C-alpha cells in the first residue's frame, strides 16, 4: 500500500497540483509511527498534544513573513508598530505567536523582533546552539539552516557563507549576525528594492522569499524563488566544536 503524498504548506506561492505517490512503505515511515506510539503509551506526551502540534506545523509557511514585509513596506504606520512590538504587529496579519498552546511553542516563544536592514546595514540570522527559527512567520526551517556547517561558519565567516548563497556585499556595508540563543526570535526586514514603485502588496510579497527573511538573499524584482545550492561550501566543518577565539 502506498504512502499518501501530502503537500501541506499553506500559501508558499506554489501551485498545489495532485502529485504521484511514493509506492513503498519505508522503515523511516514505520519508525516514526512506532516511536510515536510507544512514546504516547509511555506517557511522554499525549496523542492530543501531538495532533495539535502536527496541525500547527502543517499550517505554517513563509507566506506570512512575506506578507508582513510587504505590508510594512507599503504602510509606514504599520512599519512603526512592527518595529515597536513585533509580536503584537504579527496579529494584524493573522499570526499569533501564542499558538498552539496559548503561550507559544517550546522553541518559538512570544518575543518576536524584526531586524531592519538599511543600505549600509545587512542582517542575517542563525542559532548556533540549536537552530531556533521564527517558525510562525517562516514555517519549518530549511535543512541547511539546521546544519552545523551553517551554524558554525556563519558567525565566523559570514561573508564567505553569504557568497556561497550568491550574496556579496561591499566591505562598507555592516553585516550584523543575529545569533538567537535565548527567547527572542528574529526575522530580517529587508530594504525595499528599486524598481518596485507602485507595486501592490501581493507583488511585493512575491519577491520576499524565505532566504531574504533569513538574510542570505536580497529581494529583487523577478526573483520569486530560492534556489539551492548556489555554490559549494569551501570550508565545510566536519569536526570539533568551537572553543573560544582559537577555533578555526
Amino acid at each position, binding site marked *: 500500500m502506498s504512502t499518501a503524498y501530502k503537500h501541506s504548506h499553506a500559501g508558499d506561492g506554489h501551485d498545489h497540483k495532485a502529485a504521484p505517490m511514493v509506492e513503498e512503505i519505508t522503515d523511516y515511515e514505520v519508525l516514526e509511527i512506532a516511536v510515536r506510539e510507544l512514546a504516547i503509551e509511555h506517557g511522554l506526551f499525549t496523542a492530543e498534544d501531538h495532533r495539535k502540534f502536527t496541525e500547527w506545523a502543517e499550517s505554517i509557511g513563509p507566506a506570512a513573513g512575506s506578507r508582513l514585509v510587504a505590508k510594512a513596506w507599503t504602510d509606514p504606520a504599520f512599519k512603526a508598530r512592527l518595529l515597536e512590538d513585533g509580536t503584537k504587529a504579527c496579529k494584524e496579519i493573522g499570526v499569533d505567536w501564542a499558538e498552539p*498552546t*496559548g*503561550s*507559544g*511553542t*517550546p522553541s518559538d*516563544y*512570544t*518575543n518576536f*523582533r524584526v531586524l531592519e536592514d538599511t543600505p549600509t546595514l545587512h542582517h542575517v540570522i542563525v542559532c*548556533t*546552539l540549536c537552530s531556533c527559527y521564527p517558525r510562525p512567520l517562516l514555517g519549518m526551517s530549511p535543512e541547511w539552516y539546521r546544519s552545523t556547517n551553517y551554524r558554525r561558519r556563519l*558567525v*565566523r565567516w*559570514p*561573508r564567505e557563507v553569504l557568497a556561497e548563497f550568491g550574496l556579496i556585499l561591499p*566591505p*562598507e*556595508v*555592516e*553585516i*550584523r*549576525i*543575529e*545569533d*538567537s*540563543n*535565548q*527567547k*527572542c526570535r528574529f526575522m530580517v526586514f529587508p530594504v525595499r528594492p528599486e524598481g518596485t514603485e507602485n507595486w501592490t502588496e501581493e507583488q511585493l510579497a512575491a519577491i520576499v522569499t524565505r532566504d531574504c527573511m533569513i538574510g542570505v538573499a536580497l529581494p529583487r524584482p523577478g526573483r520569486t524563488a530560492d534556489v539551492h545550492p548556489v555554490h559549494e561550501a569551501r570550508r565545510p566543518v566536519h569536526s570539533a*566544536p*568551537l*572553543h*573560544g*577565539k*582559537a*577555533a578555526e
Partner: protein
Amino acid sequence: MKQNETLRTPNTQGRFKVGDRVQVRDMPNMFYTRTQNYVRGVTGTIAACTYKDLIPEDEAFNYDGRLEQYYIVRFRQKDLWGEYPFGNDTLQTEFPDHWLEPVSN
C-alpha cells in the same frame, strides 16, 4: 509562570541600559547554559533590553524564582575572532543580566 511566558513588566531591576559597555563572564558551565563559548570574556555594547525571565539554569531545573533582565549585546566581529578582515561587521546575541559585567567606557 507558564513554560513559555516571559514577563514584560518590570520585576527585577536590570543593571544595564542601552549603550552600556559590558563584558561576558566566563563562568563554568553548570551542565546547561545558553552562553556560547565564542563570546566568553569579550566586551560588547548593550543594543536592547528585551524581557525579564527566569535564568535558563533555573528554568532547566524547574526552580521557581529568580527573574532577570535579558539584553541583546552587540560585538565587533574583530573583537570576537582573531584576524577578522572587515572592520564594520558585528554580531548580536542575548544574555541574562548575571552573565554580564560592567566595563568602564
